[in-house]
């Protein structure tokens, strides 16, 4: 097995150029035991999600079977197997947020964007992911919006404030 065009030097026959950004990660972690979760996190950071091809590529480099990687990727809530929109809305559904009306916020997002947990808007601008807890409980209800500019947390949400935040992001897009 020779790795000719990946540039990662991993010694496999994956022959895959499209994952060149992942090559340095592979150089560092591919042969370090117990690193698969870290590799998947880095891959998701780069591509936004874990495509089937990415899983195959990682499998080739690490020698871990694709089924096992798939098993790990589906076990942890952080990993996504589908592409996401430009803005990832992470809506906190922790206890404090639940008590303070997180369901109402979810409703407002649905009314505004017509997406539910895990879905992406047709224009590819927003994806909604419900989260277990963001740890800003005293500002409940809370959501975090992650995009190319970084992440911003919005606290003490109301239906109106959510709507205006989403509209503002949309108007800038």
């Amino acid at each position, binding site marked *: 097995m020779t790795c000719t065009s990946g540039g990662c030097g991993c010694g496999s026959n994956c022959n895959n150029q499209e994952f060149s950004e992942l090559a340095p990660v592979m150089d560092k972690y591919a042969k370090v035991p*117990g690193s698969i979760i870290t590799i998947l996190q880095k891959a998701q950071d780069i591509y936004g999600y874990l495509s089937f091809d990415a899983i195959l590529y990682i499998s080739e480099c690490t020698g871990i079977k694709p089924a096992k990687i798939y098993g790990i990727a589906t076990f942890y*809530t952080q990993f996504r197997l589908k592409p996401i929109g430009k803005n990832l809305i992470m809506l906190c559904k*922790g*206890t404090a947020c639940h008590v*303070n009306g997180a369901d109402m916020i979810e409703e407002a997002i649905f009314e505004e964007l017509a997406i539910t947990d895990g879905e992406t808007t047709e224009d590819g601008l927003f994806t909604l992911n419900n989260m277990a*807890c963001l740890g800003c409980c005293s*500002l409940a209800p809370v959501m975090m919006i992650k995009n190319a500019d970084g992440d911003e*947390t919005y*606290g003490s949400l109301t239906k109106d404030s959510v709507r205006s935040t989403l509209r503002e992001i949309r108007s800038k897009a």
Partner: protein
Amino acid sequence: MRILVGQGSCGIATGARKTSTALVKQLHEKGLDQVEVDITGCVGTCFLEPIVDVYDDGGNLEARYVKVQPDKVATIIERHIIGGEPVLEYTIADVDNDFIDKQMKIVLRNCGIINPEKIDEYIASGGYEATRKVLTQMTQEEVIEEIKISGLRGRGGAGFPTWFKWNAARINQADDKYMVCNADEGDPGAFMDRSVLEGDPHSVIEGMIIGGYAMGATEGVIYVRAEYPLAIARLEKAMEQAREKGFLGKNIMGSGYSFDMRIKAGAGAFVCGEETALIASLEGERGMPRLKPPFPAQKGFWQKPTNINNVETFANVPWIIQNGGAAFGAMGTEQSKGTKVFALAGKIKKGGLVEVPMGLPLRDVIFGIGGGTKNDKAFKAVQMGGPSGGCIPAELIDTTVDYESITKTGAIVGSGGMIVMDETTCMVDMARYFLDFTRKESCGKCNYCRIGTKRMLEILERITKGEGKDGDIELLEELASKVKDGSMCGLGQTAPNPVLTTIRYFRNEYEDHIYNKKCTAKACSALLTFTITDACTGCTLCARKCPVNCISGKVKELHVIDQERCIKCGKCEEVCRFNAVNRE
């Protein structure tokens, strides 16, 4: 003069970065570049963020400004920094100062006071002195003895004596041993670990070095939730600085003891709070627990002796070494020593982090420090211990907060989340919420946890939808005991607790839902009836907004809801400007 802007995640969420930027910019414009603007962690009063502290040159706090949005910055600079007189109308109110004064801070001793990104400030506050003492003057046994005297118990939930775990890991000989910090704060509603990592990362690192020395560990790993990016960034910085100073690495302080550590970002799985599942995750597997024994102290990470403690436990350690185990043991109750940090949230007036000595009555925490319920609605219950805990009803408000007393109520101290609930919180819905959480987070290994929680959830969903049947409560109780007995790890064994405690203390609410089809808290929408009262002006707004067009009425005339077609979405109530929609 020095200005500190609180920038934990909650401070940043309320706009602290913008405040900080405005301060720097406006000070520069006034030619006041000598005034240092710095960051600090969270002081715990989340309800007052963003917080700006002004210190004089001697390091004394001159004024603590609260809710400082950028529009207040110009006034503060003009009147205080230049004029020398604090802007009293922006400073913290005496009644809110109580929130801080009534606490006793050990774990949070540096949070909101030092800059967590500067190791020199931690050292100036006495940091790494405990490490020096341990490495140069104490044997492993002496360290463990000191922790034993202190009575410190694990702050992650189980409350197991820390010295015992360290000692078990110490006596198991191996070439490699691991000290692991569990910072996978998965309990929704608890955020003290995040705050400590963001506000005082060195205290955790120091605790791990000391514990690592006591058990003979060669490497440390901090397993942090990926949802805490700021905590990870500050930890990384802190570790790098500690390495530069020689507190981490080979031959620390010339003692001959070598210890280094790294961060492992978790990927989101509540079950990884269980130690064997956490180890599986560290090894790159699905985070599924295994049977104990062997205990991690015998065969843990890579089959080597491993000790796992929680963030808050580690943060206590340097203080105990510096002040002596007896000083720590003097606080708290017979069985529960020291202080505990609680995260006050939910329907509480003053939400935030509170550190109090063990043994204080719940009333003092919720009403004395937290100020009672939001909008002064009737206090109904406090949920402690998250999905593994339970609801403590209003009549038990004088229960003291220590491991034993809380366990007696059916709840647990857990990691210290306190979610306050008022009369508008439905207890059946709460039980449903937690079951939904544990069902999703069950790793699926044990049948009862995997399927039992799902069946319980289905019953609770039926009840909250008004389709409860006679015998449902008994069936829930039966399933609960089987899920407890039939599960291998703590997740399944405790998953039924929220259901059992709500049935125990709020059985009447369950019965109301099942037999009378009523939700007394008016929270379960399927059991509500929306009607329009005489206050209606006939503005037609509700009729236009109703998603199923079930509201009829002419302009300027009383509107009527067709109950048969109403889907109880509450939209009419939400849009009505005249308070004319009644929910019953």
